[in-house]
C-alpha cells in the first residue's frame, strides 16, 4: 500500500534527510517510526502525503506515485490519508465541530452529509460533549482528539501521526495512544513518528528506526539475518521486539 523504493531526499542546504530508503507498509499495519532528532522521520512522513518527493527513487501510496503525481493527484491522495501533528494545527476561531467539518467543506463534500459524519467521528474520539467548544477551551489531549477526528472524517486508509503525543503529559499520551490503537484495530493503517520509547516498548507493533535518513532497524525484517545486527543500539527496543 505504501512503498518506498530506493528513495533519497536531500534538502536545499545539502542536508541528507532520506538515504536509499526501501520500505513497505501494508494495509491495516501499525508502524512506529523512531530515531534521533533530525533523523528524517518527519521527512519520511511528508513523503507519504507527498508534501516532499524524493530526489531519486520512488514513493508509491496506493496508486499514486511520487514520480508522476500532479498537484491534483496529491490533493486527492490526501483525502485518503489523515494527518496529525504534535501542535494539533486547529483553527483557533472555530469550534470543535467546525474544525472537523472544515475538512469536508474544503473538499466539496455534499453539505447534507457533513453534520452526520462530523458527529459520528467526534463520538469515536470521545468528544461528543465538546462539539461547540473552541480549541483554547480544551486540554492538549482533547485538542489532539479534535485533530484526529479531522484526520479521520474522510475515512482515510492511513493515519499519519508526527509525534502526536509530543506535547502531552503521560495520561493524555496514553489516552491518545489508545485511540490510535482503536483506529488501527478498526482497519486504518497508522504510521506514527515518536520519541516516546515507552509506548514503543509496551506494544508489539512494527518499529522502524531511522538515523541520518537511513533505516537502521526494522522489526519486520527481524527474521532476516541482517536485521539482527542492527538491534544493539537500543536495548529497550530489542527487548520489545524479542
Amino acid at each position: 500500500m505504501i512503498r518506498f523504493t530506493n528513495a533519497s531526499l536531500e534538502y536545499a542546504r545539502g542536508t541528507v534527510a532520506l538515504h536509499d530508503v526501501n520500505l513497505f507498509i501494508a494495509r491495516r499495519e501499525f508502524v512506529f517510526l523512531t530515531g534521533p532528532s533530525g533523523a528524517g522521520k518527519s521527512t519520511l512522513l511528508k513523503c507519504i502525503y507527498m508534501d516532499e518527493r524524493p530526489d531519486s527513487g520512488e514513493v508509491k501510496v496506493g496508486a499514486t506515485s511520487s514520480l508522476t503525481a500532479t498537484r491534483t493527484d496529491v490533493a486527492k491522495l490526501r483525502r485518503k490519508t489523515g494527518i496529525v501533528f504534535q501542535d494539533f494545527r486547529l483553527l483557533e476561531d472555530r469550534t470543535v465541530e467546525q474544525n472537523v467539518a472544515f475538512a469536508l467543506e474544503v473538499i466539496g463534500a455534499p453539505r447534507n452529509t457533513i453534520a452526520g459524519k462530523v458527529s459520528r467521528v467526534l463520538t469515536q474520539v470521545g468528544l461528543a460533549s465538546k462539539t461547540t467548544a473552541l480549541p483554547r477551551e480544551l486540554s492538549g489531549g482533547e485538542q489532539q482528539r479534535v485533530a484526529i477526528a479531522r484526520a479521520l472524517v474522510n475515512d482515510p486508509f492511513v493515519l499519519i501521526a508526527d509525534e502526536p503525543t509530543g506535547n502531552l503529559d503521560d495520561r493524555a499520551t496514553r489516552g491518545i495512544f489508545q485511540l490510535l490503537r482503536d483506529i488501527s484495530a478498526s482497519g486504518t493503517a497508522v504510521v506514527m513518528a515518536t520519541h516516546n520509547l515507552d509506548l514503543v516498548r509496551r506494544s508489539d507493533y512494527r518499529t522502524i528506526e531511522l538515523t541520518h535518513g537511513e533505516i537502521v532497524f526494522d522489526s519486520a525484517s527481524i527474521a532476516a539475518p541482517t536485521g539482527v545486527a542492527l538491534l544493539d543500539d537500543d536495548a529497550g527496543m530489542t527487548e520489545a521486539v524479542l
Partner: protein
Amino acid sequence: MSLATREALVSFRRAPLLSALSITTIAFSLFAFGLFGLVVLNIRQALETVSERVEIRAFAYDGTDSRSVAAAVAEISAYPEVLRADVILPQEALERARREMGEFKDVFESAFLPTAIEVRLKPGYRDPDAVQRVAGKMGAFAFVEDVRYGEDWINQLHRIRNIAGATGMVLGLAFAIVAVIIIGATIRMAMMARAREIEIMRLVGATDGFIRRPFLIEGAIKGTVGGALALGLTWFATSVIERYLSFDTVFFDTRLAVAGVIAGAVIGLAGSMVSVSRQLRQA
C-alpha cells in the same frame, strides 16, 4: 451563498483600506480609458457631422468656358469618393457670401468671385486622405486655378483624436498595471492572514482550484465594483462638461458600458490570479 463567496467577502472586512485602494485604482484605470475613449468617440462624432459639410472647392480661371466646367463636374461626380459635385456660378457665390457674412456685405459688391466646382464626399471618405486625393485630381484639370478644402482643421481633428486615443491607452494601461500590482499585494496579505487555513486545506486535500477560488472571486468583485465606479465617474464627468461647457456629447452605448465593467472584472481577476498562483507555488 457559497463557501468561496463568503470567504471572499470576509477579506473586505479584514483589509478595508487595501480593498478600497484596489477598487479605486481599477476605477481610475478604467476612468482614464473611459474619459479618453469618450473624447475619441466625440471627436469621431464631430468629424462625422462636421464633415458632412466637408467640401472641396476648385476655382476656375476667369473666362473658363462653362462646357468644360460641366464636363469636369460630370467626371468628378463619377469618382467613388464623391457624393455630389455642383457648379457654383459667380452670382450664386456672391449671394451666398452675402448671406453668410452679413457684416461684410459691401466687400462683396463686385462680382470678383470666380466660377467654382463644389464637391461633397460620401460618408466613408470624409478623411484627410480621401480629401487630398480628390483635391489632387480636381487640381489636375487645366482650367482649375486653385483648390481649397478644410485641410488644416480636418488634420487637426484627426490628430487630436489620435492623441486622445493614445493618451487614454497609456494612462489606462498604467493604471491597470498599478491596479494589478495593488490587487496582487492585497491578495498576498489576505493569503498570509489565512496561511493557517490554507495549510490545513492542503493537508486535508483541497485542490489548488478550491483554495484559489475565494481569492479569484474577491478580485473579480473588486474589479466589477471598480468598473462600475469608473462608469459612474465618466458619466458624471461628461454631464459636468455638458452642463458647464454647454456642449453636446455622446456617451457609451450599453454594449461599451458593459464591456467597461467586464474589463474591470478582468483586471481584478488577473491581479488575483497572478498573486494566488505565485503564493500557492511557493507554499
